[in-house]
């Protein structure tokens, strides 16, 4: 599995982590190229269906990162989001998706932290291997359709 390069989707808050990732770039820090960033206004904007959609479309892991609780641009967005994640994690756990979704707080000043966590998550997803559960569902369904229609 050494040549496996995971696809990791990062949902990041526009006001903290996105600028943190920008700082990592302007500071010429090198980090894993497996992470694709999607900028959202606030982590409170993150609908858990985004994460499910990411897995459906072939992501191997998801990073969700926003402001530290007291620093939220919208005062309470990241705190309300945290409550949601607590329950959301339980739902993923019960459904059998484990170790694929990672949560962080990265401020605009933490470019180094961003570089570190992306490397860390990439390594952890590499150890887990590709997320095949959803593609397997897909293939099984396609196969059953082929059988049904000669």
């Amino acid at each position: 599995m050494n040549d496996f390069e995971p696809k990791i989707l990062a949902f990041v808050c526009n006001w903290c982590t996105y600028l943190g990732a920008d700082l990592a770039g302007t500071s010429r820090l090198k980090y894993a190229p497996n992470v694709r960033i999607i900028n959202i206004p606030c982590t409170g904007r993150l609908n858990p269906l985004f994460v499910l959609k990411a897995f459906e479309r072939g992501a191997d892991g998801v990073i969700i990162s926003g402001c530290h609780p007291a620093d939220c641009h919208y005062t309470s967005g990241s705190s309300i989001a945290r409550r949601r994640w607590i329950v959301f994690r339980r739902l993923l756990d019960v459904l059998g998706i484990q170790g694929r979704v990672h949560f962080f707080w990265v401020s605009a000043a933490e470019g180094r932290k961003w570089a570190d966590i992306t490397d860390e998550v990439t390594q952890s997803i590499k150890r887990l291997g590709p997320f095949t559960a959803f593609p397997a569902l897909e293939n099984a369904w396609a196969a059953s359709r082929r059988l049904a229609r000669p």
Partner: protein
Amino acid sequence: MSQEKLQSKAKALLESNEADLIIGYQKGYVANSTRPIFITQPEDIGRLVLNPFCHNNLAVYLTKHEIKKWGRPAIVAKTEDIRSIIVLVQEFQIKAEDMTILGFNCPELGNPDAAVSLYEAARIEDYERILANETKGTELAGETFDELDGLLAMSPEERFNFWQEEFSRCIKCYACRAACPLCYCERCITEVNQPLWIEPSAHPRGNWAWNFARAWHLAGRCVLCGACERACPVDIPLMLLNAALAREVAEKFDYLPGYHSKIAPPLATFSPDDEAAFIH
């Protein structure tokens, strides 16, 4: 006996114009069953029944336009249904002052010999007091929770396969949504097609997304009345998902839905002391 008492109560409500519509149960088409009835005339009260087969959660009708236009309803509701009415009031879907609740308690639904007793209350505040003393917390125990512990003891792959097996039977009839009083959105996420969040065909991917979204949208709100699971024609254990989220909310935020109509729902608020160990 409770049945006669209920009928006389309901009749008095209609005759005194305290209620315009009685939402209750009538005899079903087959033995040991009931179906909903909507009564506006006092002479029809004799059709109202009350027995251990009053399974349906009638609170589902309270948010419907067709029902609202009749005016002030009086609704026959068992203990769990009263809790779902309290959540509807908490979420500003119905007005508590317009409504009379004819509450009853039946500890063993489905058992023909079970006792059915009426609550001596009509207003939501009274029921909040009664429920707080009587039943608080007992809903977080029982067979469903034992099953849930069994499920959580499996490995994640086994759990995924378990749900894949269960969801593969889903035919996307949305009976679970129709039976749930708290699934009241006029436009459900599954009907949104730009973007398409949930594939409408009975495809494994769409089945997953639908059952995921349904459970998630009820997190911290579900009162565990069991209406979705009873409605499911292919017996998907939906209550397992509901129970898992209900227990998580109870443990982490010390909150049970359906006991207070005036406090903010747990997922619409926050505390600085919420768990943070999983965020690095």
